[in-house]
């Protein structure tokens, strides 16, 4: 008679054998001592395994023995929303509104390129409505959060879904308004006498508008010439932009060389290496210029706000002049009707015969070292406090992600690698996003919205890692927060060191962003695995 093999014996012992088969084995084992011995020894082995595995050989580590402090999550959400709301309000009232006011009055705001890009509509005229959208979205978020809290039962995922759906909806809404004619190709020419009764979006190497665009012109190309008439705005970027015709709206443009011979009824904002307003050029509103060289020979109705290396004015400016840069030259033909303020390295050169309404108020850019560091230290301290708060929130609201992120930060090399690649990819995406912004607004915004928080949160994971490294890893929100606070304190302290601080900060951003991405990736994977298993 054949003996049963070890596999069958094991399955029999585990109750995994079909009844008939099991009965057969039982019958056989009654007769066969070899199979009985096999069954016996396998059972013994099972018992040994269970006993060894279940033996309480170790006491629970202290870090786990303490009860988890988890009841904080709910007020953390509330606090989070309140803080986010307050933060948004503060940013709005203290940064964006004054900046917009100051630019419109040609006052000197601390306008960085980015703020300009994002909030003043340098590239996309829809940002104004976006800001309304963001406010609305914040309200929706708050509303949904409050509702979920009131209902008492907190379904995190459902709430997120609702918030994001609302956001997506809001982002999607302004789009239909910008239905437009779209052209692609190497060369685009709108001949004289022809008219486009809509916004016109053109990409191509060479773009030439001789006819009329009854709407906005949005152009990306190597060279863009506008000799005809545009009733709306001219927006885009190119190597050369030449405007010889008439624009009834604004010009918002990135270009290497931008020349204006025609007339613009409203404002011009330009980022350019060389920006030339020729003697025939007319700007009805104000000019905001970020340029290497600005030559203003024509007539500017409103004010001039410029961040230029060199500024040369020989034309007319109706409003105030605010310039920050290296050199300012005012030629004899110039006529400046408003107050003039210049902040720069070299004193202004004003030619004889120039007609100025008032003296140039000159402020030399001097290194106010002590004051500056004092102020930066205060600002850094504020930043530090904010980061600790955000870290605390993250810890309470998304504890899983927090722990994952910190753990991934421990894998220094992987995090750095992923971070570096991601940042490059993100930069590319942002550039692409801006190209696409006019076509697929949602995509560009989504990227920008994801980018900023990631950059901000990066410091928290690195800070937490640093704290853990120094103080060890004990459980409990209090201990975690303490370590995070220490880590962040060190990071922000280093940040105050002039050159080193910058380098370290860049590393921190890359490292932390990598950790976040790794953590997100791992989480997305574990979710899919978990759902697959259920």
């Amino acid at each position: 008679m054949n003996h049963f093999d070890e596999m069958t014996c094991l399955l029999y012992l585990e109750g995994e054998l079909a009844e008939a088969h099991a009965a057969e084995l039982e019958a056989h084992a009654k007769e066969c001592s070899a199979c009985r011995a096999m069954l016996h020894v396998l059972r013994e082995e099972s018992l040994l395994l269970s006993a060894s595995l279940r033996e309480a050989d170790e006491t629970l580590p202290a870090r786990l023995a303490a009860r988890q402090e988890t009841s904080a999550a709910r007020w953390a959400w509330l606090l989070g929303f309140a803080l986010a709301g307050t933060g948004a309000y503060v940013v709005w009232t203290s940064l964006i509104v004054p900046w917009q006011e100051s630019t419109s009055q040609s006052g000197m705001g601390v306008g960085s390129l980015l703020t300009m890009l994002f909030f003043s509509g340098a590239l996309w005229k829809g940002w104004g409505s976006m800001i309304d959208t963001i406010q609305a979205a914040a309200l929706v978020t708050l509303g949904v959060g409050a509702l979920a809290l009131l209902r008492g039962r907190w379904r995190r995922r459902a709430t997120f879904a609702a918030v994001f759906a609302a956001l997506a909806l809001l982002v999607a809404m302004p789009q239909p308004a910008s239905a437009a004619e779209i052209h692609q190709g190497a060369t685009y020419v709108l001949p004289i006498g022809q008219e486009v009764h809509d916004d016109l979006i053109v990409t191509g190497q060479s773009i030439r508008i001789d006819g009329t665009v009854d709407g906005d012109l949005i152009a990306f190309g190597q060279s863009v010439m506008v000799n005809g008439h545009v009733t709306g705005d001219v927006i885009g970027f190119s190597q050369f932009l030449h405007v010889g015709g008439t624009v009834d709206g604004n010009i918002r443009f990135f270009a290497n060389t931008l020349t204006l011979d025609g007339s613009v009824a409203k404002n011009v904002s330009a980022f350019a290496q060389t920006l030339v307003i020729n003697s025939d050029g007319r700007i009805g509103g104000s000019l905001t210029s970020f340029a290497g060289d600005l030559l203003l020979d024509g007539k500017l109705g409103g004010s001039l706000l410029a961040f230029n290396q060199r500024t040369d004015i020989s034309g007319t400016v109706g409003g105030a002049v605010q310039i920050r840069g290296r050199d300012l030259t005012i030629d004899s033909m110039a006529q400046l009707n408003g107050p003039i303020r210049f902040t720069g390295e070299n004193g202004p050169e004003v030619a004889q015969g120039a007609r100025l309404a008032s003296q140039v108020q000159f402020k030399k850019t001097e290194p106010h070292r002590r004051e500056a560091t004092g102020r930066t230290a205060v600002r850094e301290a504020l930043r530090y406090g904010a980061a600790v708060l955000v870290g605390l929130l993250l810890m309470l609201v998304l504890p899983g992600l927090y722990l994952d992120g910190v753990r991934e930060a421990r894998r220094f090399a992987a995090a750095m690698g992923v971070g570096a690649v991601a940042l490059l990819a993100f930069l590319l995406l942002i550039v692409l996003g801006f190209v696409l912004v006019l076509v697929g607004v949602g995509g560009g915004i989504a990227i920008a919205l994801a980018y900023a928080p990631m950059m901000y949160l990066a410091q928290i994971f690195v800070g937490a890692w640093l704290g853990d490294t120094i103080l060890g890893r004990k459980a409990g929100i209090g201990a975690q927060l303490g370590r995070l606070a220490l880590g962040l304190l060190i990071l922000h302290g280093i940040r105050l060191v002039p050159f080193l601080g910058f380098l370290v900060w860049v590393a921190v951003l890359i490292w932390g962003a990598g950790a976040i991405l790794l953590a997100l990736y791992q989480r997305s994977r574990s979710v899919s695995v978990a759902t697959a298993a259920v």
Partner: protein
Amino acid sequence: MVEATRTLDGPGPAAAAEPAETIARARSGDADAWGELYSHYAAAVYRFCRRVLRTREDAEDATMEIFLKLREKLGQYDPQRSFTAWLYRVSANHCWDTLRRRRVRQDLETEDSDSLPLEHPDPGQLEQLIAQRSGEQVRKALAKLPDRARMALVLRYYADMEYGEIAEALGVRRAFVGVVLLRARHHLRGALQRAGAGAAEQKQFGAARSKGDS
């Protein structure tokens, strides 16, 4: 000898009595009840992680993360079914995930040997081996097994999981679970034998030396 077919289906660790009432309170959002549950199950989950994962630190981290997950998913737990089983299922998924993240190439290679035929053991020799080994030796040998083999043994003989659950957790077909377990046992026997041989040699060497010294 062959009377009982399910001798191992006794209560697993922590399964003794499920505090159903506490679970219900925790499900309705009672933080204190959750605290009680944590105290009740933390040791069992930690030990599970300790057996499955390679380092103590990993086990501690995993335990904390598992409890965070458990709390998040508490709403999905079906009170009709065993809480312990659910607890171990979540733990198993988490740990298996962690292992797969850390998986080293070596492990993948050893698992390629799945297709090799297994030798039929000699029950007498095996019995001797089993009788001689302590729990600690078994645990040490277990730590030397490839991830999947170790995990399978822990799921079956620590967490008392059914074959179907093990199949789900490891992502293999149910019919394959028996094979995985048997192979794991063979691996373990090998490790135990080698460890025993090493220990015996050391003992002999030590004895010889002390003799020489005297």
